[in-house]
């Protein structure tokens, strides 16, 4: 029952993605992407359906579990029928993004990647066994909220009391509700659930960055990016501490990956944008930073795609994105306006106070200095992989695929806007700057780390390209002459 309650949302997520996903000649390269996306989409759907069930039928938790199980089963059957019907109706594959075919010395990267993957999984399990309730924020915020949702029954709104303001009752509920839903299904609490949910998000992030880069660039590039992510101890430690930053980073990455895949599709196929809307919405249902991400996604896509696309195509794409986003965003808005307390960081401090902080140069200096220090060391690396990536960029050069340049431009704008947004939140923070930066900056940077790695490895030459360029000086000169 435990494993069924944990994995049934993943199957739902997988089938939903399979329905939306464009048909390809070769299905297998996309299976891993779909499976990884299914983790976030499935747990996201189960989380907000549990929350809506609580809001609508707080008196009947057993009734809700039965209703949810039945509706999940019906949903699965309907999806399977639709899937079978679509295969019969449309046996010929539509045009689709072609997996990158350039294969180089993959084995050189394959072995370290799998060694790192196995080591990370074992480390994750040991960390989880050592602290089964999670790290500080893991138990004091996310798991405690899950307990409130599961244990409270009719009185579930008590968890949003001002008396426990220190536990941030304004934080969105994707993680707590996903955990509480599993507990409700099995009828009791177990520490296995939050640990497995965290593990699923962490390793789905690794799988997603590997599989998407394998398709968009090359397998070696996928292995390299996956290895850098697995070689970031802070990513594994935070994942095991059951906080929401790794799941949030997953949703950021998933949204950006879906935009890249979408932009390689024919202009009349917008299915992946609905999924992107859903994953962007789930980021807002995970943490407040997701709301900022959502705003930045809209601004960045608007500022770049409107220039390179026909307006009608853009509007149709925007509609598809909004269709995926709307149900989740409506839930977030309902939660924020009807149930949650105001957020302490973005509560308006008064115009004069905000202007004072924004015009205080020393705050920019203090935050800037802390950022510079934290960015270099935030991964708990033996040697800063961030510095090494700068060296790597200079050594192997850049060569982005022309087909993904618009998506690349919008992703770069998006990440810059997010970084600027985070920076300004610190500058205007009502709390002691030193304390705020020291307790949160590394986690904020971790949220962006998988997405930054994706964009980085989409831009730089693949290992085989870099080596070919070296072995053929003629090609090298040509590449330089082409400005690549």
């Amino acid at each position, binding site marked *: 029952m435990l494993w069924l309650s944990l994995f049934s949302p993943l199957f739902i997520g997988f089938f939903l993605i399979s329905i939306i996903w464009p048909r390809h000649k070769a299905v297998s390269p996309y299976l891993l992407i779909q499976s990884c996306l299914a983790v976030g989409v499935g747990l996201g759907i189960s989380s907000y359906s549990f929350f809506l069930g609580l809001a609508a039928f707080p008196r009947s938790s057993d009734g809700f579990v039965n209703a949810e199980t039945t509706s999940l089963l019906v949903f699965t059957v309907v999806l399977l029928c639709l899937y079978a019907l679509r295969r019969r109706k449309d046996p010929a594959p539509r045009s689709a993004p072609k997996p990158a075919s350039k294969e180089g010395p993959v084995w*050189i990267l394959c072995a*370290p990647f799998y*060694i*790192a993957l196995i*080591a*990370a999984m*074992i*480390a994750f399990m*040991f*960390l989880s*066994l*050592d*602290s*089964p*309730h999670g790290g500080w924020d893991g*138990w*004091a915020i996310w*798991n*405690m909220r899950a*307990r*409130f949702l599961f*244990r*409270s029954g009719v*009185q*579930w709104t*008590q*968890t949003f*009391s001002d*008396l*426990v*303001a*220190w*536990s941030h009752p304004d934080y969105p509920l994707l993680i707590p509700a996903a955990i509480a839903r599993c507990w409700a299904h099995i009828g009791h609490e177990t520490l296995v659930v939050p640990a497995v949910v965290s593990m699923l998000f962490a390793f789905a992030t690794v799988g997603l960055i590997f599989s998407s880069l394998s398709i968009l660039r090359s397998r070696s590039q996928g292995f*390299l990016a996956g*290895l*850098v992510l*697995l*070689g*970031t*101890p802070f990513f*594994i*430690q935070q994942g095991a501490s059951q906080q929401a930053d790794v799941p949030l980073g997953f949703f950021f990455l998933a949204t950006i990956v879906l935009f890249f895949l979408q932009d390689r599709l024919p202009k009349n196929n917008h299915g992946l944008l609905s999924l992107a809307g859903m994953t962007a919405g789930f980021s807002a249902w995970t943490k407040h930073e997701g709301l900022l991400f959502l705003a930045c996604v809209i601004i960045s896509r608007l500022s770049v795609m409107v220039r390179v696309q026909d307006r009608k195509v853009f509007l149709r794409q925007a509609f598809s994105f909004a269709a995926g986003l709307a149900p989740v965003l409506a839930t977030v808005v309902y939660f924020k306006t009807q149930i949650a307390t105001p957020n302490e960081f973005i509560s308006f401090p008064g115009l004069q106070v905000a202007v004072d902080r924004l015009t205080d140069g020393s705050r920019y200096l203090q935050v800037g200095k802390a950022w510079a220090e934290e960015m270099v060391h935030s991964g*708990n*690396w*033996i*040697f800063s*992989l961030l510095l*090494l*990536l700068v*060296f*790597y960029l200079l*050594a*192997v*050069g850049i060569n982005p695929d022309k087909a993904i340049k618009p998506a690349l431009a919008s992703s770069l704008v998006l990440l810059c806007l997010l970084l600027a947004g985070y920076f300004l939140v610190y500058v205007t923070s009502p709390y002691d700057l030193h*304390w705020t930066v020291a307790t949160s900056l590394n986690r904020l940077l971790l949220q962006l780390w998988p997405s930054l790695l994706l964009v980085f490895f989409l831009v730089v*030459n693949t290992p085989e390209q*870099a*080596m070919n*360029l*070296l072995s053929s000086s003629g090609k090298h000169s040509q590449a330089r002459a082409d400005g690549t």
Partner: protein
Amino acid sequence: MVARAAIILLIFFALLSNLRLFRQTLNFAPKPLGTDEITLYEKRFAELKKILPYHGVVGYISNKQAEDIRFDAGAAEYYLTQYALTPLVVAYSPNYPLVVGNFLQSVIDPEIYTSKDLVPLKDFGNGVLLFRRAGR
């Protein structure tokens, strides 16, 4: 040559960082399930939970009062008490009909609670007590 070196360096340091974490976690002393710090801390409240109401708000006192419970590390015991007693809301104040006492020592100076008009209802051992407000 430089590109090859960059690739090798990146693989080497990523793998090294990964394996260092792996080695660190292998050094953890294996603990049987249910014997971690938080689970043991929660067990202190097992008997208290049986006689407290399931819902509502109770107060809290300790000999380790924090200035600001959001930032003071001394408030950790209070956070853990709330975590253990959920879904009961534990308010960081003695001004409630029922008040949970969470003390580090088993022998407590009565001044701590008499000064707050609290009367002990039951001592559960391990520094966990239940009080009621005097005159109610």
